[in-house]
């Protein structure tokens, strides 16, 4: 009963033609009903019309990456979060979600590229067709989920700014306003703003994704609205949320957790059961909803797509 067109990227992970969720079907129906209801309202409220146009990008989501895995429930994905800007406990981000204002939103592009500037979120999103990608998400704390992201490849976004030959890395920053810090930013638990980075070839890998939604609707704030990175073969903290700045750099950028605990969190932070961690054994993980742990896969199971990025590198040293 596949209504989706598969797939520009193939996996050898026992892929089947399963349609993973009934939830997406349910959502489609909801979209249809909502669209009907809001047609008349749009004539009077142009802003509503714009929001609806945004929603429409999710309507015909192509599922481009799929694993034979059942995604976690919307509730699990949106209520069990690490987003220190909105609080340090797993339940804090959803409680404090309203503190994050995502409208208006703009993203500043800087550094080694031909088209730097500050772009509105609309400008950023406009040229991209959204796809759905069902990825495993592995937290360094040794738990994991399966998440149906919506969005577009990071490579497609970065190419638009014509990075120069000097652009060896891409750095990202999360929203931070010193004068109006988010609840978790009031204390220097981390050196704000939150920063992350990728090597250029990692950033351009087809798996690297900019997510704007989950389950076929816009990201809730606690999941990093309105725009976040998803790097499925790396520990979750690399997948920076609520991005306001993208900078092309020649040298390896600083990253927040690496600054906080350099012996624990490396720049690469690839999911790797062979690299010991002083806090959590990375050999196994607890899939959310399960009582017992299961073995963790190297590169979180995406080795076929990404292992070649690291040929010749000692991943124990470059952890």
């Amino acid at each position, binding site marked *: 009963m596949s209504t989706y067109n598969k797939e520009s990227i193939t996996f050898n992970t026992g892929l089947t033609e399963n349609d993973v969720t009934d939830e997406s079907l349910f959502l489609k129906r909801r979209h249809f009903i909502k669209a009907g209801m809001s047609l008349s309202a749009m004539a009077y409220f142009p802003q509503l019309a714009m929001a609806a146009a945004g929603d429409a990008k999710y309507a015909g989501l192509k599922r481009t990456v799929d694993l034979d895995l059942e995604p976690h429930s919307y509730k699990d994905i949106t209520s069990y979060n690490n987003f220190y800007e909105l609080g340090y406990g797993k339940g804090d981000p959803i409680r404090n979600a309203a503190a994050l204002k995502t409208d208006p939103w703009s993203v500043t592009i800087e550094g080694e590229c031909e088209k730097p500037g500050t772009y509105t979120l609309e400008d950023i999103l406009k040229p991209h067709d959204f796809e759905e990608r069902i990825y495993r998400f592995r937290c360094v704390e040794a738990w994991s989920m399966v998440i149906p992201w919506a969005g577009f490849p990071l490579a497609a976004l970065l190419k638009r700014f014509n990075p120069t030959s000097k652009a060896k890395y891409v750095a990202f920053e999360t929203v931070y306003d010193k004068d109006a810090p988010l609840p978790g930013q009031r204390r220097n638990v981390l050196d704000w703003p939150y920063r992350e980075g990728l090597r250029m070839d990692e950033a351009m890998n087809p798996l690297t994704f900019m997510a704007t939604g989950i389950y076929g609707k816009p990201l809730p704030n606690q999941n990093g609205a309105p725009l976040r990175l998803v790097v499925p073969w790396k520990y979750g903290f690399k997948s920076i949320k609520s991005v306001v700045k993208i900078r092309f750099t020649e040298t390896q950028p600083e990253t927040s957790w690496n600054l906080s605990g350099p012996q624990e969190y490396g720049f690469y932070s690839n999911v790797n059961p062979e690299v010991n961690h002083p*806090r959590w*054994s990375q050999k196994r993980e*607890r899939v959310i909803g399960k*009582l017992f742990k299961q073995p963790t896969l190297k590169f979180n199971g995406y080795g076929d797509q990404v292992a070649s990025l690291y040929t010749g590198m000692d991943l124990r040293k470059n952890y």
Partner: protein
Amino acid sequence: MSSIQVVQTSFYKKYKAGIITGAKLLISLGCLLHIGYFTTALFCCVDFANPVEELSHATGEWGLHFLLLSLLITPLRRHFKWNDLLKFRRFLGLWSFFYIFIHFFGFIFFDHFFNLASIIEDIIDRPYIAVGFAGLVLLTPLAVTSFKRLQKKLGKRWFSLHKLVYIIAILGVVHYWWLVKADIFWPVIYALAVVVLLGDRLYFYWVKDAAKKQRLKPSSKKDTTGQPSVMPKS
């Protein structure tokens, strides 16, 4: 005010044993419900995303709470002379042990499925687990020897043995501090609590020592500082 106090005091005196037993029953019931809630959540009824983690955190926290409460008894007795609190010390200590044991059981069962090699590796590789495990190893003999018969049998050695609780409290806080990723707010609070609880004891040692030196004659006065070296003769 004084009349109320008199009524309360006489009421308390009359029903003291019952009140103490009742308080213990209530606290025990609360603990059992608390543990029952998190245990039930593993299988049904409560919609936690990560129920194993919830159980682990709840039992770890309350194990530490009861440990610190048991350490609070002696300072309260010294400062406020409410000696009946002593009747709660073993009780609180045993609940601490029970919580910490469940905490440990969750670790060896849910994280390692009783795989001994895997458990040992985790203890060796992760300092915070090593410290927590050391705390449990030291706490176990205290729980085992907490029964009156053994207490009497061991005599003075019982008190020396149970001084280990000071080290266990420190290990418990270090365990918590080291497992926290970045937000050390609560570990700092617990550490301050331990500093106060142990500092109070140090202070009393110094005062007692000073008093002893001043006295010169050992027979002049009874020691009333309430240090547990004066064994309750019950």
